[in-house]
């Protein structure tokens, strides 16, 4: 009986953990958008970095949650410890949510000290190409 209770509790905890998981299907990786804000929360973990920015834009003032590439991928794309701290004003480059709501998948970031890390998305590369060619 005791074992049953323990196993049931373990399964409930596992269920709660699994419920926290989700895939990246909700993000539009064909697009890229830059969002600037003040860091309220940042955790460099795997499989996805976690970030909350306090943003002020045409829609108003609010906190927006983001997730991003794995810390390991970001590390190999230039990220190092303490590059992002709570209170910093940073810009993140995201694959926006397909439904147009706030949030997105961080593929790169420009830190408060001006260091950029991360990958350039296809959309960013295309935008840079068009700009370089004077078409945008």
């Amino acid at each position: 009986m005791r074992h049953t209770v323990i196993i049931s509790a373990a399964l409930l905890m596992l269920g709660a953990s699994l419920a926290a998981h989700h895939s990246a299907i909700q993000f539009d990786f064909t697009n890229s958008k830059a969002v600037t804000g003040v860091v309220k929360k940042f955790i460099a973990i795997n499989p996805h970095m976690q970030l909350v920015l306090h943003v002020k834009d045409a829609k108003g003032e609010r906190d927006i949650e983001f997730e991003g590439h794995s810390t390991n991928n970001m590390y190999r794309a230039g990220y190092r410890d303490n590059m992002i701290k709570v209170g910093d004003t940073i810009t993140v480059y995201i694959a926006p949510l397909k439904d147009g709501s706030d949030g997105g998948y961080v593929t790169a970031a420009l830190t408060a000290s001006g260091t950029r890390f991360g990958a350039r998305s296809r959309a960013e590369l295309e935008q840079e190409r068009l700009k370089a060619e004077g078409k945008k």
Partner: protein
Amino acid sequence: MHRRFRAAPGIAAAGLVIIVFGATRLGAQQPDFTGVWTTYNDPGQGPGGGGGGRGGGPPLPMNDAAKQKVEKYQALVKPTGDTPGGYCLGTGMPGSMLGSGGYPMEIHQRPEQIMIVYEAHNEVRRVYLGDRMVPEADRLPGRNGYSNGRWEGNTLVVETTNLIEQVDQRYAHSSKAKIVERYRLEKGAKGEAVLVAEMTMTDPEFYTAPVTATKKWAKVPNGHLLPYECAEENWIKHLEQLEKKAAGK
């Protein structure tokens, strides 16, 4: 003094035996794959290449029953985009040897055992050689199975069995699958060390013919793997939920 001189040839002979035995034990004749390796792209091949991906090509020689199993699984996860990795599950064979999600791997080579550590999910494969091989009756099946290795000249041949059925693999397979990997060193376009891994999978329950694939790895000089605690994100989120609950929110 005289006796010491007479003993010297015996000592020298014993030393020679130790040296020869030691050289054999250390596998001095075999190439050393020890080090950190990352995906190698042949010249002209874009990022994300290096083998391992299906990337189109001819369809796999999968029988109808296996196709139905794979389609049933894909119908289940496609709407959500869920993957085993998203649930912190290691890639499993043959996905691990064919790239492990694009992350690097580290090889530690000893004569009797070769450890392959894939950075993603801290996944580990152990390849046993000679007396280190695990008797069939003492094995438990798993996503990476059991791997036995042997040297054929400069090529390391690894046979993997005792796998569980994995319809979530890019190269899906049953528990009867047998995967043979052949590893050898080559030189890349810039003269760098490239580890070529050729895979042949036979599976009478899923396939009507052997399935083959090749993955190439480039040596990372003085490379290091990074930690990868996949479950940390979920644990933090779980703690946040507990904090909210405790605060009555």
